[in-house]
């Protein structure tokens, strides 16, 4: 069995989805943690210090490459699986009572993931790219004056930006609700005593992370923080 054979088998592909998914789940903890610094409500001082650390520490900047590699792998593998799984049933059922045997969000991971991909394109172009331009363009001349907190505050004054972000978080919610526990099953962890705990942690994680993310644009828009 070659490595290629192993990772291109149906179980190998699932393994890639599960591992990259768990990796992204860990990343979201860091992301939501740093962003929650806005709730200190000190005009962005704490948040900007945290953001500055995240974008200047060289270990984190190397890890950032790993993050994008993991994200790309998750996206590409997911889209390939979606295509392959669709092709496995060329003639569809004319009547299919799928809700009787499974949850809609479990069956819609491809769709939810694609919505998240669209959201990520908007999200990255809004904040990530600007930070990188300030960091590298003109030898970093604008780096010191770049204020990510003010950029966020400004973006979230527009109602439709807030709506896009909330919709993005809703997609994330359903994606995580299935994905968290599904990753453990893929890794072969299904146990009478541990699985209920894993599922409960997954639900708790999903609710907390998504509420915190959704609160960010909403708080700025409604002026709860300034």
């Amino acid at each position: 069995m070659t490595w290629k054979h192993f990772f291109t088998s149906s179980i190998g592909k699932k393994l890639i989805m599960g591992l990259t998914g768990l990796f992204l789940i860990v990343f979201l903890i860091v992301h939501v943690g740093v962003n929650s610094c806005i709730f200190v409500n000190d005009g962005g001082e704490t948040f900007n210090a945290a953001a500055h650390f995240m974008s200047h520490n060289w270990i984190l900047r190397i890890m950032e490459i790993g993050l994008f590699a993991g994200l790309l792998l998750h996206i590409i593998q997911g889209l390939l699986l979606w295509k392959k799984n669709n092709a496995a049933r060329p003639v569809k059922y004319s009547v299919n009572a799928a809700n009787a045997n499974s949850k809609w969000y479990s069956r819609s991971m491809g769709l939810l993931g694609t919505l998240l991909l669209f959201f990520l394109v908007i999200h990255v172009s809004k904040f990530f790219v600007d930070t990188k331009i300030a960091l590298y363009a003109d030898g970093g001349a604008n780096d010191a004056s770049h204020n990510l907190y003010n950029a966020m505050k400004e973006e979230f004054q527009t109602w439709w930006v807030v709506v896009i972000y909330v919709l993005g978080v809703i997609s994330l919610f359903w994606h995580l609700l299935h994905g968290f526990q599904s990753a453990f099953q893929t890794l072969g962890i299904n146990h009478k005593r541990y699985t209920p705990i894993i599922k409960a942690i997954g639900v708790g994680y999903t609710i907390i992370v998504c509420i915190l993310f959704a609160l960010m644009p909403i708080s700025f828009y409604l002026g709860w923080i300034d």
Partner: protein
Amino acid sequence: MEHYNMNLTLKVWKQKNTKAGGSFETYQVKDISSEMSFLEMFDVLNEQLITEGKDPIAFDHDCREGICGMCSMYIDGRAHGPWTKNTVCQLHMRAFKDGDTIVVEPWRSAAFPVIKDLIVDRGAFDRIMQAGGFISVNTGNAVDANALPIDKKDADTAFNAASCIGCGACVAACKNSSAMLFVSAKVSQLALLPQGQPERESRVLNMVAQMDKEGFGNCTNTYACEAECPKGISVSNIARMNREYLKAGLSTEE
């Protein structure tokens, strides 16, 4: 339970052969007893069609007592119909009311080509079994039952996995047409018992390779398979197969 008769409208998939395109035909059946099985209702309909000189509906069946795994109908959007942990042959007409319209389709999967009407070719399952679903022991007299000590828990789990009848409802119900529940039941059954140890590694690798070759989709853990399985095979078998595959795939030197 009170007995009653019913008149029904049936929309049944008719397809001449694997290559021909199929379509739904509508049939009327009268005075169907609530005590009939779903297949007996089809027998009545076929008698009627033969008398009228029409082509009867082809459908798979054998034991009609829920253990052979031959019957395979997708009824009103559910594999094996509306009852859970049940095969079509054990589905009784009391599940329906007078005047109901029932839609009947074959299992739909690229790996299960339609042979005729509601009959699909499940040879893919046979080829997966031939790839590793066996043990290499010499035949002869049955050994004494207690010669090989086996943990009660393992024996029970293996037995539950072995109750899979290979009907293909898991593939039919899965949105990805994945055969993971079937293959994992067969892998688990043998991996849990001492007789299955010699081929434990090669078995899971070969059976998964054959499963992939047959064109089944990939599992996304929706657990529709478990919900529709007439024998209630647990998805914990899929987790076990994932473990077996990881262990074998990472440790093999071949």
